[in-house]
C-alpha cells in the first residue's frame, strides 16, 4: 500500500527562532487514522501546517500521496491542498459573513470541483446531524457545535485523501465530544480518508487506529 504521508529528514525553524524541529523519517499509510499527541508547544500544529503546505520545511522532503509536496511551487501546492487535503482547525475558521452553503462551496470552487456540491453538502449535513435549513444560515450565527460540524463538512466536501484535524474538541463537553468523534471517524471510514488527528487530550486516542507521540517523532535542536 502506498503511504499517504512520508517525511524524510524534515527540519523547520520559524524566523528569528533559535529552535529547529526535525523529523528524520515518518510515514502514514493510506486510510490510516492516527492520533498525534504531545504537550503544548511540542510542535503539533507546526507539523500539521507543514503537511498542509502552510509552512515550508527548511530542509528535507514531504511526500503526500506519492507526490513531492514540499518541492511543489506555491501555486501547485495551493491546488494540491485544495484537491487532496482537508483541514479542520481548532477555531473552525469559517467565514462568518458567508452562509454555510457558501463556506462549503468555496472549498469546492478552489478545488475546481463544482458539480454535485449541493448533493454532497446535503449528505454531510445529514451525516453530521445538522438540519437542512442550516445551509442557508450565516456561519457567524451558528452555535459552536454547529460551526464545528460545518467545518468538517467543508473539509470533506472535496473527498480529500488526507484530513488534518487540529484540536477540534477543546470547546466541547464530553457528550458532544464523543458524538463528534464518532461522526468524524464514520465519515473518514466512508471515504477511506487518511486522518491525522492532533490533540493534547489522550482520551481521544481510543477512536483512532494508533497513537503517536510527537516527542517520539521529532527532535528539537538549538541553532545559532
Amino acid at each position: 500500500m502506498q503511504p499517504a504521508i512520508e517525511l524524510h529528514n524534515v527540519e523547520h525553524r520559524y524566523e528569528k527562532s533559535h529552535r529547529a524541529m526535525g523529523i528524520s523519517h515518518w510515514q502514514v499509510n493510506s486510510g490510516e487514522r492516527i492520533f498525534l499527541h504531545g504537550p503544548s508547544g511540542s510542535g503539533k500544529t507546526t507539523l500539521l501546517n507543514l503537511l498542509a503546505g502552510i509552512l515550508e520545511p527548511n530542509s528535507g522532503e514531504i511526500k503526500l500521496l506519492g507526490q513531492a509536496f514540499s518541492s511543489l511551487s506555491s501555486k501547485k501546492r495551493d491546488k494540491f491542498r485544495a484537491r487532496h487535503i482537508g483541514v479542520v482547525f481548532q477555531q473552525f475558521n469559517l467565514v462568518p459573513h458567508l452562509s454555510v452553503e457558501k463556506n462549503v462551496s468555496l472549498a469546492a470552487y478552489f478545488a475546481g470541483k463544482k458539480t454535485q456540491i449541493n448533493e454532497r453538502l446535503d449528505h454531510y449535513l445529514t451525516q453530521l446531524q445538522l438540519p437542512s435549513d442550516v445551509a442557508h444560515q450565516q456561519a457567524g450565527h451558528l452555535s459552536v457545535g454547529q460551526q464545528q460540524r460545518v467545518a468538517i463538512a467543508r473539509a470533506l466536501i472535496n473527498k480529500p485523501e488526507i484530513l488534518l484535524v487540529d484540536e477540534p474538541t477543546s470547546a466541547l463537553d464530553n457528550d458532544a465530544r464523543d458524538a463528534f468523534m464518532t461522526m468524524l471517524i464514520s465519515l473518514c471510514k466512508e471515504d477511506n480518508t487518511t486522518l491525522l488527528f492532533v490533540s493534547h487530550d489522550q482520551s481521544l486516542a481510543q477512536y483512532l487506529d494508533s497513537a503517536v507521540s510527537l516527542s517520539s517523532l521529532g527532535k528539537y535542536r538549538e541553532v545559532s
Partner: protein
Amino acid sequence: MLLSFATSSLRSRSKSVVLTFLSLLISVSVLLSVEHIRIQAEDSFKRTVSGVDLIVGAPSGQLNLMLYSVFRMGSPTNNISYDSFEMLQNDALVEWAIPISLGDSHRGFRVMGTNESYFAHYKYGDKQLLTFSDGVPFSGVFDAVIGADVAATLNYKVGDKVVIAHGLGAVSFNNHDASPFTIVGILAPTGTPVDKTVHVSLAGIEAMHLPKKQLTRVLQAPDNLNNPLVQPDSITAVMLGLKSKFATFNLQRALNNYEDDRLMAILPGVAMAELWQMMRSVENVLRVISVLVLVSSLFGLATMLLASMQQREKEIAVLRILGASGGVVFTLILVEALLIALAASAVSIGALTVVFASLKGWLASHYGLFISANLMNTHTLMITGAILVAAIVTSIIPAVDAYRSAIHSRL
C-alpha cells in the same frame, strides 16, 4: 464565486464601506459634473450663433468683431458704410444679410439696430429661429423687440415705453427722452446674448440721434421706415448667410481686399473656437481641482482596504487554506475596490442625470447654459473607465499586502 464573496465581504463591513462609497460618490460626481458642464458649456457657447457663414465689420480683430457683434461685449472700433451692407445684400453669393448697429443701451442692456432679416434668418443652437413669447417683430421706427432677460429683469410687457440712452453704460445721463420706443414684441428665451438685447430698427437708431426739429418730423410719421431722414449712413457689422458654403472662403478673401470700404470678414466658427481657447486655463484649473478631489478619495479607498486587512487577515488565511492562490486573494481585493468604484460611478451618473434634468430649465433661463441631462456619452464612459482603472491602481497596495500576508500566524 469571487464576486459573490467580495460582495458579501463588503456587506459585512458596511459602515466603513458606505463611508468610502460616499466619499468616492462625491468626488466622482464633482469630476463628472465639472466635465459635463465644461463640455456642455462649450457646446452651448458655440451654439450662440448658428447658420451664419460670415460676419463682416470694420477691421479690428476677429475676436473683437465676434465679441461685439454676437456677444454684445466690448465696443465697436469703427463702422462700415451702409453702401457696403447694400453691396453685400445684393451679392449673388449672399442668400441673406443681417445689419447690426450698436452703440446705445437701455438700463444696462445693449440696444441693437437691425432690420426684419434678423427675425427671419438669425439662428442659434441647432439652427433654431427666434420665436416670440409675446407680440410681433417691429414695423415702425419707434418699435422695440426685447429679449427674454430684459423683459424678466425690468418687468416689461408689450405696450410699455422704453427710453434709450446714448452709450453703453448701465447708468447714462444722455437719454434720448424725446424718442421713446414702444415694446411690440418679447422674444422667447434662447440662452444667448439675444435675451439681453433690446432690438430696434436701423431707422429707429438713426431717428433718436436726429436733431430735435428733424426728429419731430419723423415722429409725425412713425410707421415710415423708408423716411429719407432715418436712412442709415453706416452700421457696425453684417451677418451673412451664403447660398453655398463653398463660396465662404472666396467671399471672405474678396471682402478683406474690398477697396471701396475697409472691411474685415470672419468665420464665426473659427473665431468662436479661438475665443473658447482663451478660457482653457479656467477649464484646466477646474479639471485639476476635480482630479485632486478624486485622487484623495481613491487614497481613502486604499486606506479603507488597507485598514480592513487587519480585520480580514484570518478570512484571507482561510481562503488560502481552502486553496485560493495568492493571485486569487490579490484579485479579490481589486474586485472589492472595483465594486465600490463602479457603484459610486453608477450612482453618480444616475444622480447627476436627475439633478441636471431638474435644473435644466433654471440653468438655461438664468445662466444661458443648455446642459443636457444625458450623461451617457463616450466622454463620461471614458472618465468612468479612467476612475475604475485609478481605483484598481490605488488598490494594488492593499492587494499586495493581502497577497503577502502569511497564513500560519493567522489561524
